[in-house]
């Protein structure tokens, strides 16, 4: 499903970061833990196809993302990878439904309003279909973020600090929601966080430490 080999990333005027090889299968979850500054977000951006690694490979569904042209990579990302960010950002001019329709369109998928209704129902916000994003509460917006990440039927669900800003109760709720989506969509789930509170919810864990930066 997703496998990396010998990924490194080097920022200008800084030592390169070496990432351990990871492999995540469908229906499995991986928690990547690490303190700030260990290259955690960079890792997520590389996995999400948002930026290329300095060296090494990311293979998703047997396709090496490094080998794709920028345009192909855009489409590949849209249809294979669902990203959930800490901040909830939506097209404010569009309704919830239109936001999700747009995502499917950009991913090159056929329109499917039935799926939109189903995903929103699964995330507990079916009644917000025709609301504008700014009419949603914080919690609802986060659910919508997850809905958007899964609407295009991705094989990898990537979440960047999904729980960090939340209190204990909501923190676990969000984690559970992500796991549920992973199960219903039968995709791989990778969560990148420094939030230790959710660590006992995941069997597969990887800790990024400052030593990755040395050598």
């Amino acid at each position, binding site marked *: 499903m997703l496998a990396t080999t010998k990924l490194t990333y080097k920022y200008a005027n800084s030592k390169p970061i070496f990432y351990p090889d990871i492999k995540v299968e469908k229906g499995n979850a991986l928690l990547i833990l690490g303190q700030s500054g260990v290259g955690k977000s960079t890792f997520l*951006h590389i996995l*999400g196809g*948002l*930026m290329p690694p300095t060296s090494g490979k990311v293979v998703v569904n047997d396709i090496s993302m490094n080998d794709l042209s*920028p*345009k192909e990579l*855009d*489409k590949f*990302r*849209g*249809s294979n990878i669902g*990203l959930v*960010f800490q*901040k909830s*950002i*939506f*097209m*404010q*001019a*569009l309704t919830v439904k*239109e936001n999700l*329709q*747009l*995502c499917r*369109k*950009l*991913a*090159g998928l056929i*329109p499917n309003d039935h799926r939109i209704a189903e995903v929103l129902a699964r995330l507990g916000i079916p009644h917000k279909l025709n609301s504008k994003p700014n009419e949603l509460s914080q919690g609802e917006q986060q659910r919508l973020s997850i809905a*958007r990440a899964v609407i*295009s039927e991705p094989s990898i669900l990537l979440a960047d600090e999904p729980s960090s800003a939340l209190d204990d109760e909501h923190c676990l709720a969000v984690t559970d929601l992500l796991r549920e989506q992973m199960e219903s969509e039968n995709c791989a789930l990778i969560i990148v966080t420094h939030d230790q509170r959710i660590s006992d919810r995941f069997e597969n864990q990887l800790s990024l430490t400052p030593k990755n930066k040395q050598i």
Partner: protein
Amino acid sequence: MNLAKVSWKNVWAKPWSTVLSVILIAFGVGLLSLLFIFKKQFTEQFDRNQAGVDMVAGAKGSPLQLILNSMFHVDAPTGNIKVEDAAFLFNPKNPYIEDAVPLSIGDSYKTFRIVGTDNSILEFYDAKIDQGRITENVMEVIVGAKVQAETQLKIGSTFFSSHGFNEGDLEHDHGAPFKVVGILAPHNSVMDKLIITDYRSIWEVHESHDHSSDTLSVNQNSITDDLDSSVVAAVPPIITDFPVKDITSILVRFKADKKRAIPVINMPRNINENTTIMATSPTYQLNKLLANLGAALKAVSYLAILIGLISALSVFISLYNNLKERKHELAMMRVAGASPTQLSALILMEALYIGLIGALLGVLLAHGGLWIISGLLNAQFHYALDAWRLNIVEIALIVGTCLLSLLAGTIPAIRAYRTNIIDSI
């Protein structure tokens, strides 16, 4: 939910800044468009009503007023002249003059002007009788299509004329009334708004109550105050039979092969210098008028272009500002699979929408404005403009505005193209 729709929704997500840009564009385009179509239709009216008239002669005064009064039937006459003084123009032996039509102007019916002339005016304008016949006797009239439509005069209707051109002017209500014998087919020229009668009818009307001191020349078919129509009809007179009578002006056409002859070119000046009447060339006067008008229109068109440029700036500022706020949204679209080109397209489409709406609204405003102007002109002068006719230049104006809008959207579009996903999420 395609990009075009997203773009459309974005345009209206910030209605006030969009409305501002649209209004600015609409005013710029509207003004330019109005100027253009007004000038065009104005010129067309002039062209249509020129009827091949090469020279107009009348009482001394303002040459432009003489033209406006005698050919376009607006403004007051410059005064009257005696037939005698202009007799040389009616001389069939004149080697340069093809024909000359006398006009007696000054009376009206329900604000439509009555022109005393002879039937050759129909040939001048190439106007055709739709119903009835041409006038054969005094006090008979032919009415233009517009006159008929607005006054409901029919063949056989009779009416009294008013002295002057305004509603409520003194009515000539004694003596014989005018009688409609013919109705002209619509001609799309000044003929539509005229009531045409024999020049002697005008004399008849005026002399029947003021008994002017005119002494008629003794002539086999001279007419007296109690004019006998049957006598007149039997032997058609020629106007030079009435040397002491008044007429307002004379429309003159030169012989086709003599138009460039030196005596013809000098004729207006010769007449002005050597006779008591005035003569002028309509082409010269109208070109002078259009040149003056053109200078004023040019000044307004510069203003319109300035508004147009300001509106383009407004489109640019509005898109550019929105872009800052929407940086995150654009990055999110990239995450969801949008290419940089698609983001540029999104912004350019927004610019295009604003330009297109503004331009269409502007053209609509211009035609609405023309419609109002046309109403005023119609009420005052019985001239109607074709307010809703779209011109090719307006299409070009719309396309041009869209292109200008796209140009204004270029820099924001380039910035959208360069949206950095990592920094913006």
